[in-house]
């Protein structure tokens, strides 16, 4: 009985000691891990934000660069060669490579030279430089000419004694029918570019347009 009492008395102190020791050791371990992890988390989040901002910036740059080429416009010019056929008398026909319109034949030169040379070339073809009758005739010529960016001499020049624009057939220029745009100087001859009649130095180079009237079998060479 006494021995049993002694054993019972011994066991509890050991157990109590172990119980007391185990609790204190856990809390410190638990506290340490979260702190280091928290630091890592903060740093990662900061880095993440920086990278996201960088990514956004890069994306914007890429888009800007991609858009640049598309801004360059590509223009395709389709030149239509309108072949207008007008009924004409059996006896009256235009020479080959000439254009027929109402009662006139027109020829567009394929080379450039001065106004005088243009007029001489028309003369050798039995024609004269173009004498524009009205806007409708000018419109026909514009539609027929292939080269849209060339100037063409016409039979209109600025005469010194009269100080006036005159057609080579002696007729005075009528500003109600056509307008001359540009500076008029002595020694000026008229050329057309698009729908505009422009004064030009007669010694300059331009292509030219000849005309021949169908009503006259032997057109006169006025110069």
């Amino acid at each position: 009985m006494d021995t049993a009492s002694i054993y019972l008395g011994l066991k509890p102190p050991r157990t109590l000691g172990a119980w007391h020791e185990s609790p204190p050791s856990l809390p410190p371990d638990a506290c340490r891990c979260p702190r280091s992890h928290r630091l890592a988390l903060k740093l990662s989040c900061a880095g993440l934000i920086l990278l996201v901002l960088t990514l956004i910036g890069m994306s914007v740059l890429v888009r800007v660069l991609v858009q640049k080429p598309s801004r360059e416009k590509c223009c395709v010019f389709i030149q239509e060669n309108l072949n207008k056929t007008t009924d004409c008398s059996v006896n009256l026909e235009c020479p080959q490579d000439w254009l027929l319109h109402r009662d006139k034949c027109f020829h567009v030169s394929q080379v450039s030279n001065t106004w005088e040379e243009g007029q001489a070339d028309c003369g050798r073809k039995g024609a004269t430089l173009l004498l524009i009758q009205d806007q409708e005739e000018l419109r026909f010529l514009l539609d027929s000419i292939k080269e849209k960016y060339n100037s063409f001499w016409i039979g209109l020049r600025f005469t010194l004694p009269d100080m006036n624009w005159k057609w080579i057939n002696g007729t005075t220029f009528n500003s109600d029918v056509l307008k001359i745009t540009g500076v008029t100087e002595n020694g000026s001859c008229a050329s057309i570019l698009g729908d505009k009649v422009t004064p030009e130095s007669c010694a300059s180079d331009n292509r030219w347009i000849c005309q021949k009237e169908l009503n006259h079998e032997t057109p006169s060479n006025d110069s």
Partner: protein
Amino acid sequence: MTASQDEVAHERLLNTEVTTTDHLENGETGKKIQEKFCGIVSSKSHCRRFRCCGVTMVLIVVVVLIVVVVALSAIMIKQMSTKNTYAACLQNWTGVGNKYFYFSEYTSNWTFAQAFCMAQEAQLARFDNEEELNFLKRHMNSSHWIGLHRDSSEHPWRWTDNTEYNNTFLIQGDGECGFLSDNGISSSRDYIPRKWICSRSSNYMLQC
């Protein structure tokens, strides 16, 4: 003697009982404390560990992915910049000898044409030999402004960089601005609308 021994024994027994009771109480308290601490601490630390690991892993993966994407974007941007620069320099320019020439698609007066060329780090076209002149003529289908100009018909012809023209090829006409036609070099007033040609040395193209 026997009575005294019994008393002692009784006292011992009483002491023993008291001690046992105290021990039991302490044991119960300890167990409870231990259970509580173990349960709370173990579960918390376990959960925390898992959460920390998971979040950390996810963050690492995301960061790596973003770094890769940014690097690729940077590479793309460099390539595009190079391409665009090269394209801007070479597009529509034709090389001959040590020069590049640009032929315009539209018309304008001489002054505007020169301003356009200068905006491209170039000048209205200058030819220095017959080869270049013939090349320019072959590429034209209408008259084009070039870089020859003078103050009046009494003044000498000059290039746009103000060097005097050496009169190798005759210039027709009495205008102040030079242009090329299929007939050669001619001149006219500056306000006539024409296409134009710019020229630039190939050194500049390489620098691009």
